[in-house]
């Protein structure tokens, strides 16, 4: 129910008067309007944008770090695989080299043994030949010596001394 006073108030006051009663002043309102726009601009320019920029930078760095870590992990796996491959190749190569070296060593030993055996055979043959010669010479000398002694004995028995030329011819004749 509208009372007489409130009805009077309602009729007699226009909106600007009501606003004026609660302290409205368009100059102040305009100044505050500008003030708030300045605060809005300050916060936008020097708080929200830098924070957004920093957060984005951080995010990109985190992403980059994660990508790098993933890449490093892949590279590590690849390096490990490469290492294993190289190691197995090296092992195989080393095995081959050892086998070859063993074969070579065996060949050398076999060859050296063969050469040594041949040499031994030659030396033995030479020695045998030499011994044979020696023996023949000795036999011949012994035969000559024996004939000489026999002739000496025979001449003593016969009391006649053979001249040296005859004796040499005789020895030669008997030792043939």
């Amino acid at each position: 129910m509208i009372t007489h006073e409130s009805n009077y108030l309602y009729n007699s006051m226009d909106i600007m008067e009501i606003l004026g009663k609660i302290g409205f002043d368009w100059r102040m309102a305009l100044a505050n309007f500008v003030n708030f726009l300045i605060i809005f601009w300050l916060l936008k320019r020097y708080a929200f944008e830098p924070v957004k920029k920093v957060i984005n930078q951080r995010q990109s760095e985190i992403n980059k770090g994660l990508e790098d870590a993933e890449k490093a992990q892949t590279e590590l796996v690849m390096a490990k695989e490469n290492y294993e491959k190289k190691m197995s190749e090296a092992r195989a190569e080393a095995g081959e080299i050892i086998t070859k070296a063993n074969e070579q060593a065996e060949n050398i030993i076999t060859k050296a043994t063969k050469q040594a055996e041949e040499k031994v055979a030659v030396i033995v043959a030479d020695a045998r030949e030499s011994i044979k010669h020696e023996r023949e010479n000795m036999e011949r000398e012994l035969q000559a010596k024996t004939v000489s002694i026999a002739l000496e004995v025979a001449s003593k028995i016969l009391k006649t001394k053979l001249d040296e030329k005859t004796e040499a011819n005789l020895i030669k004749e008997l030792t043939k």
Partner: protein
Amino acid sequence: MFFQVAGEIPNIQPETIFMIGNFPVTNSFLMINLITVLLVIFLVWFNRNLKIKPQAMQTVIEMFLDSIMRLIDQITGKRSVSEKIFPMITSLFIFVGIANLIGLIPGLTSITVNGFSIFRTPTTDFNTTFSIALVMIVLIQIQSIIDWGIFGYIGRFIQVRGIIEGFKKGLGEGMIAIINFLIGLLDIISEIAKVVSLSVRLFGNIYAGEILMVIILGAFAYALPAVWLGMNLFTGIIQALVFGALTAAYYGTALKEEN
């Protein structure tokens, strides 16, 4: 008398401290300037200390901004819209929050010149709440014009085309279109009413809080005002939140449906 502290009920109008030409410099205006200066000092310090690897203060600020973004997300339902209005809503929340709470700093509003406080809680001045609401509604209308186009924007309020198209379809559709046309006209009043409702709500809450503070101090000056001070802190934050959330909601309705 021992248990009571007599205080003056703050005037509904801000007190003029001095004049610059024709312009009255009021205590609430001085407080807004003080807030601006403090904000500039803080922003200079903040920008100097801004690092990719954040310190404690930067972490708190980032968390605070993130929580506001999440709150706006809940209202708008879409991140792209939230990002668009984030600077506006957050500035509003920060400013209204500081403006509501700065008056609670003991002693600040007790500094007087010629019997008037030099500083007054800005949101207890209708000029402040009105201009903030006006800034918000103007910015929303600008964004709405950008979004709809000038003719689309006008067409939202004056739906003449709807009437023509409605009557082409039939009498019933035409009558509905006339109702829609009238609703469109009412929407103009509704847009203006948003400024009034936002500004009066904030002004009323904070001003009433200050009056109650004086009344409680006058009734019983021990313990009870502390509870009310805590309540005022809470109210200050809640009102800033309500103001921001409502603006975000208004903003959401001002954009096209597909947004």
